[in-house]
């Protein structure tokens, strides 16, 4: 609990910027104030409000898992006013942060389980944190499978990491599956030739046929654009996942991030949820109880 205005941000400085694709940058930053840094405890799936003074703030997933190293990594798509301003910043510039917000993925509650991670497009940002966490605590989890769907190689995020998992994941304890939509994509095509049991042309849902059958002790964690959920959930249901074994992170318009401003509202009289505060991670069971979620 903060004893001041929840809309007051903390100061951070950009330490590194990587252009990941034409429209996405990885921004690394570090808090300016030591207590801010040491108080900042987060779980994969939580997000921050990232701000540029004079333009505004945007909710951005923390795409790492908490480690001893101070600092945060954010993968930011240039999608509008604030994100454009974020893209215009340079190493050394100040940036303003509030958070961490939201519930995040329940990493402790799912210890001991097999993990099926599914990410589409920018949805990899929160899922990357989950993967890092699970690999960091590898002994706490069972099998880890990771399905990642991209439009084409150029739009693939975290390319080096993904290719590394693709080729050497099995040794590190994660099986990576890759799908790509663009039929003319040469690089992805080569990958699919390299391992046709791990890479295919099509939507991310096409990768499900490559999976072993569901173990009776597994959960699925999904991140992706709204339209991906419907189709992915259908596949998961076919595999036998129960509604409380599927966790997904949702996106809505957000202003405050703390359950006040109402923009991220979803649901009906029976169940109203605020994605920023009650989510952004919900189970399929939550979605069944809250109309309009997916």
């Amino acid at each position, binding site marked *: 609990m903060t004893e001041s*205005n929840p809309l007051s941000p903390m100061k951070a400085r950009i330490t590194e910027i990587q252009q990941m694709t034409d429209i996405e940058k990885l921004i690394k930053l570090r808090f300016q104030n030591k207590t801010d840094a040491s108080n900042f405890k987060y779980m994969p799936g939580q997000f921050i409000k990232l701000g540029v003074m004079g333009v505004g703030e945007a909710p951005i997933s923390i795409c790492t898992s908490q480690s001893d190293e101070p600092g945060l990594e954010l993968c930011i798509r240039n999608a509008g006013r604030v994100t454009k301003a974020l893209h215009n910043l340079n190493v050394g510039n100040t940036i303003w942060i509030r958070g961490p917000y939201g519930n995040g993925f329940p990493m402790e509650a799912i210890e001991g389980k097999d993990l099926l991670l599914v990410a589409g497009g920018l949805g990899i940002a929160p899922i990357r944190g989950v993967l890092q966490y699970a690999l960091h605590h590898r002994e706490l989890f069972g099998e880890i499978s990771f399905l990642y769907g991209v439009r084409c190689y150029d739009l693939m995020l975290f390319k080096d990491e993904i290719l590394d998992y693709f080729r050497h994941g099995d040794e590190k304890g994660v099986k990576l599956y890759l799908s790509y939509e663009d039929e003319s994509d040469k690089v992805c095509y080569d990958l699919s030739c390299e391992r046709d049991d791990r890479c295919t042309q099509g939507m991310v849902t096409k990768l499900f046929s490559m999976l072993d059958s569901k173990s009776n002790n597994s959960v699925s964690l999904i991140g992706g654009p709204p339209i991906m959920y419907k189709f992915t959930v259908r596949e998961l249901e076919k595999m036998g996942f129960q509604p409380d074994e599927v966790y997904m992170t949702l996106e809505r318009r957000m202003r405050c991030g703390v359950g006040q401003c*109402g*923009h991220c509202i979803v649901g009906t009289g029976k169940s109203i949820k605020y994605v920023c505060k009650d989510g952004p991670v919900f189970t399929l069971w939550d979605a069944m109880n809250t109309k309009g979620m997916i």
Partner: protein
Amino acid sequence: MTESLYKVITKEELSQFGYALRETGTIYAPVKTSKESHSFKQVDTLTEADLEYHRTMIPPKKFFISPKETIFTFNKEKEEYNETPAVNEPLVLFGVHPCDINALNLLAKVYLESFTDKYYSERRENTTIIGISCTPDEYCFCKSTGTDYAREGFELFLHDIGDRYLVRVGSLKGYNLLQKHASLFREVTEEDLSLYRQAEKKRLASFTKSLEMSGLQDMLDMSYNSPIWEEYGEKCLCCGSCNLVCPRCRCYDVQDYIDLNLNTGQRERKWYSCMLKEHGLVAGGHNFRATSAERLRNRVNCKGSLKEDMTNCVGCGRCSAYCPAGIDYVEILQKIRGDIE
């Protein structure tokens, strides 16, 4: 202490009490501002107030969350910002109705439960709320929502029982206020009690509008695809008035402004409404509530949902009374219930 928490004050002496309250803080009370509207305005004496009012157009939440406010000013070169200091001037809100008191209680939960909003809590601490009983008009249905009685969230509550008020104490601060002005108040007599019984009977009998609440949340859920939303969505002007006058709505928007020097500027917070087109719009152009029907459905569902066993609507009637298109919230829900065609 065995002091009774009920007292009586005559209407004549009330103005004296009002006068004395100026020591406690600046007094705001309902004042008639136009044909159909009242507003909580600063008054010097209670004679300026209209204590028989039905409702103010803008509810007293304006004292706790300003319609427009600067959260902080910033200086980019200095890499710093300065929060706007909370207003510390003590206020007396005189003549607040039970629906509005209940609405403030729920609003406080939103603003204080997970993250303490410094401004909200400081403003509440600096405010003395004096409630007053009321007579319903054709828009009021607070009896249905169970919010026609204020249990807490006020200092003193005045029940009009003819030529005098029965005074109910709602907080220690209110108790101390009574002690301070003890000479204006007297103990409750058997006669006062019987006047109170009569007044309550009369008040309860004068409601003309009502809405059954049981099962409403389920009915709303099952009416997600009902044609009702289209029917009213077509009439709706998407003007936002219903939300902006609602004592329970809390939606706000935040915007930054930069000065011409490109260095200083401010971040502002403003009331907002889910009936406005961009409430659910995200970057890239997807709108989670693109049509007026979807937005109206969201509004009615939000208001019809429960927050700790109390509906998010306190039955004040403002949204219906001030809708330029004449859309009646209760009528929509009566249709959802199947009570009317």
